[in-house]
């Protein structure tokens, strides 16, 4: 399968949960799909971008999740099915639009996919986005497998149109990034243009309209609960021969529950919630009344658990409900089969059969965290900044590959909270601290969230240095284009937006553009910027090493090597600079030329000229 369009209807294919969502959207006749990349959601957008032209749908990588949601809303209220996808923190950005959209409701089906990240594998928090369904009054679908991703996306559109409400589809890493068998169906032709029907008494949410629409929403939620009661996504499953012990579970927790029960030989009835908000109260009460005890297994927050306890109290249902309140499961990090086995064993008083001992790694195994790639321009920029500041500065950082600069030897990050926070927090830091403040933001992040912060900084006369790290792409998530890009998804036409023009348009008077591969220029420019008595902006522009054009040998310029005779073993190249191609063993520093990207920065880093380019 090269694209999600390839599999023939009726075939069984190994697909990522995310790919299954993309395929399902196409089969549901989606007309508009938008996104901002973010792990673990990125493949949804990428799969659709790849085929949008051929499939005749409109797809865009929007500037940020709010805009993505708004664009999709414009299509949906016109009667065109729309899909928006994002990671969990992206929903924070989109929430302003989504929550009021629940009031106006939709015409065409609207599905918003939030891909959550328990254990923060690639995120700054592990918030549980099921809360948005409670906050917004939104139907919530939670698939447990790639096949369910497919089915729930398709039915999500139907559900959305039936209720005229946006539907939230919530996955986690262990659903989105799992590859499993999916049986696909018929693709549908994309819809044509629609006619928007004017109805400002519904779609323009002035207070009088909003008050009325809230009542409409509450009515729809009652109807949604009836649909949840009848939904095949809320079903009774059986572990072993089933029995009086009950388990209520959803999402990835269901997967662990079934495998854990199998391993323990536990017979139990399992109530699997897939359409979990509004909670199908009748189904749940019936389950509570016919099982004891009932163990609630869910990842992160005790949302289902708390609802069930309240339900039991309200209906005077006496049953032992066990869950996080009893300390059986944590409220943090992802679950796994081992954790769930222990919870089940304790809840149901089971013995865990002894297993052969697991191995342990030797102590002090060298860690291998992600690092900036060989040839990464950010390495060069950080080295130059440290040289220019002598490390006497406060660094406000942001989200992207460049966040990896937090680690030694650069340590160029002191504060990071969200997309775009570098610029806003830099203003606050500069107001109350004596030390110079330097904010780092990437090009994609700048377009996403940096502009209001920059306007504010100019207007309020904040004094700091902003370094825009322009590597010409959205690198960490898979090199998606952004508004500065000359190219969009295949088949689309885009207009590249100049960062320089934007910066000047925000009112910045001191702006320089440097090539980070020129270490001396970059260092001098940073020094000059810090001497300014006003906000200064440097655009450090050099294409990401992974996508830079390469000659047949894979080198950007030329491979480098360390001349051992000239090397004074000062270790600047490994202690103050870092490149995966440069390593030090028994204090002999050398370069692995297979990994060398040929950027030549190391040659400028070495104070003794011992690093040289190899003539071919």
């Amino acid at each position, binding site marked *: 399968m*090269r694209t999600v369009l390839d599999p023939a209807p009726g075939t*069984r294919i*190994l697909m990522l949960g995310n790919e299954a969502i993309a395929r399902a959207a196409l089969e549901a006749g989606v007309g508009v799909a938008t996104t901002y990349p973010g*792990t*673990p959601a*990125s*493949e949804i957008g990428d799969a659709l971008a790849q085929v949008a032209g051929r499939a005749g749908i409109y797809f865009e990588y929007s500037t940020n999740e709010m805009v993505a949601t708004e664009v999709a809303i414009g299509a949906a209220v016109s009667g065109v099915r729309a899909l928006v996808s994002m990671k969990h923190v992206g929903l924070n950005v989109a929430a302003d639009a989504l929550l009021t959209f629940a009031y106006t409701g939709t015409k065409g089906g609207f599905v918003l996919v939030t891909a959550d990240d328990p254990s923060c*594998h*690639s995120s700054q928090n592990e918030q549980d986005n099921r809360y948005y369904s409670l906050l917004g009054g939104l139907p919530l679908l939670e698939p*447990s497998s790639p096949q369910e991703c497919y089915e729930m996306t398709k039915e999500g559109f139907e559900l959305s149109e039936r209720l005229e409400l946006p539907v939230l589809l919530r996955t986690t890493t*262990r659903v989105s*990034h*799992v*590859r*499993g*068998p999916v049986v696909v169906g018929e693709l549908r032709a994309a819809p044509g243009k629609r006619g928007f029907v004017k109805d400002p008494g519904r779609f323009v949410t002035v207070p009088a309209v909003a008050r009325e629409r809230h009542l409409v929403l509450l009515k729809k939620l009652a109807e949604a609960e009836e649909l949840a009661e009848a939904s095949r996504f809320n079903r009774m499953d059986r572990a072993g021969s089933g029995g009086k012990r009950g388990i209520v579970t959803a999402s990835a927790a*269901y*997967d*662990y529950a*079934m*495998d854990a029960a199998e391993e323990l030989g536990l017979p139990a009835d399992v109530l699997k919630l897939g359409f979990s908000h509004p909670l199908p109260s009748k189904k749940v009460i019936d389950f509570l009344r016919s099982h004891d005890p009932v163990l609630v297994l869910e990842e992160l927050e005790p949302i289902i658990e708390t609802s069930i306890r309240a339900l039991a109290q309200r209906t005077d249902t006496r049953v032992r409900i066990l869950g996080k309140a009893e300390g059986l499961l944590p409220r943090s990090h992802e679950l*796994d*089969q*081992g954790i769930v*086995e222990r919870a089940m064993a304790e809840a149901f008083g089971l013995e865990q059969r002894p*297993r*052969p*001992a*697991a*191995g*342990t*790694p*030797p102590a*002090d*195994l*060298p*860690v*291998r*965290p*992600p*690092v*900036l*790639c060989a040839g990464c321009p950010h390495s060069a920029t950080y080295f130059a900044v440290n040289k220019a500041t002598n490390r006497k500065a406060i660094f406000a950082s942001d989200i992207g*590959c460049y966040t*990896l600069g937090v680690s*030694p030897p650069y340590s160029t990050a002191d504060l990071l909270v969200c997309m775009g926070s570098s610029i806003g927090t830099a203003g606050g830091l500069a107001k109350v601290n004596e030390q110079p403040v330097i904010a780092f933001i990437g090009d994609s992040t700048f377009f996403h969230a940096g502009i209001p912060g920059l306007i504010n900084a100019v207007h309020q006369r904040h004094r700091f240095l902003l370094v825009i790290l322009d590597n010409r792409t959205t690198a*960490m*998530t*898979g090199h998606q284009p952004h508004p500065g890009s000359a190219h969009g998804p295949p088949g689309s036409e885009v207009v590249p937006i100049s960062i320089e023009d934007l910066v000047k348009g925000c009112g910045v008077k001191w702006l320089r553009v440097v090539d980070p591969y020129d270490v001396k220029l970059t260092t001098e420019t940073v020094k000059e910027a810090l001497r300014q008595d006003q906000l200064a902006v440097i655009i450090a522009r050099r294409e990401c090493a*992974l996508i830079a054009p390469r000659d047949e040998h894979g080198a950007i310029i030329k491979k480098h090597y360390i001349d051992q005779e000239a090397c004074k073993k000062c270790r600047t190249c*490994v*202690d103050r600079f*870092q490149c*995966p191609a*440069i*390593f*030090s*063993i028994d204090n002999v*520093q050398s370069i*692995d030329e297979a990994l060398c990207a040929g950027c030549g920065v190391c040659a400028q880093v070495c104070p003794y000229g011992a690093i040289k380019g190899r003539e071919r």
Partner: protein
Amino acid sequence: MTDVYLVGVGGQGIITASRMIGQAALSAGKHVLLSETHGMAQRGGSVVCTARIGDLHSPLIPDGRADVILSFELLETLRALPKASRSTLVISSSERIVPVSVSTKRLKYPSVQDVRAAVEMVTEKLVIVDAPRLALQAGVPMSSNIVMVGALAGTGALGLARKHFEAALEAVIPRKIPENLRAFSAGFDSVKGLAENL
């Protein structure tokens, strides 16, 4: 039910290898689940993938329960030991990718003997495959990951016929097929004769 725990370094083609295993299992009519590390992995960090063949629901392998550890890099073989027990088959490439922490913190990178000794404290079933050399000899230098899948197939540990792996190879990487099949064969043949002892 067979659980394969794949480990290595970002950029080594581990996700592709897991897809080949998954596709081989699927074409043999088995149910399979694969999990992957995305995003951060390409930045040279440790990568973990799983391939679980059988009627399972969840994608992660509990500690001590991997049937096979397929490691593409020596240091990561050691890091994977919590998933091993005495019944685990460890197939490790001899490839070394030195992490920057060794350079900056002046740590020691373990030798092949160190790795062998540490693994054999947990399980006797260890095969070390010189995947980069075999790939080079096959004339396909960037195909160490295919060599390793070949070695896995050669041990018979998954109970899947060779033809399923070869079909999977063509399905997952639909180009340079003759070259890749050569790399696969090189890995497959390298464990010949060991299969009975594993």
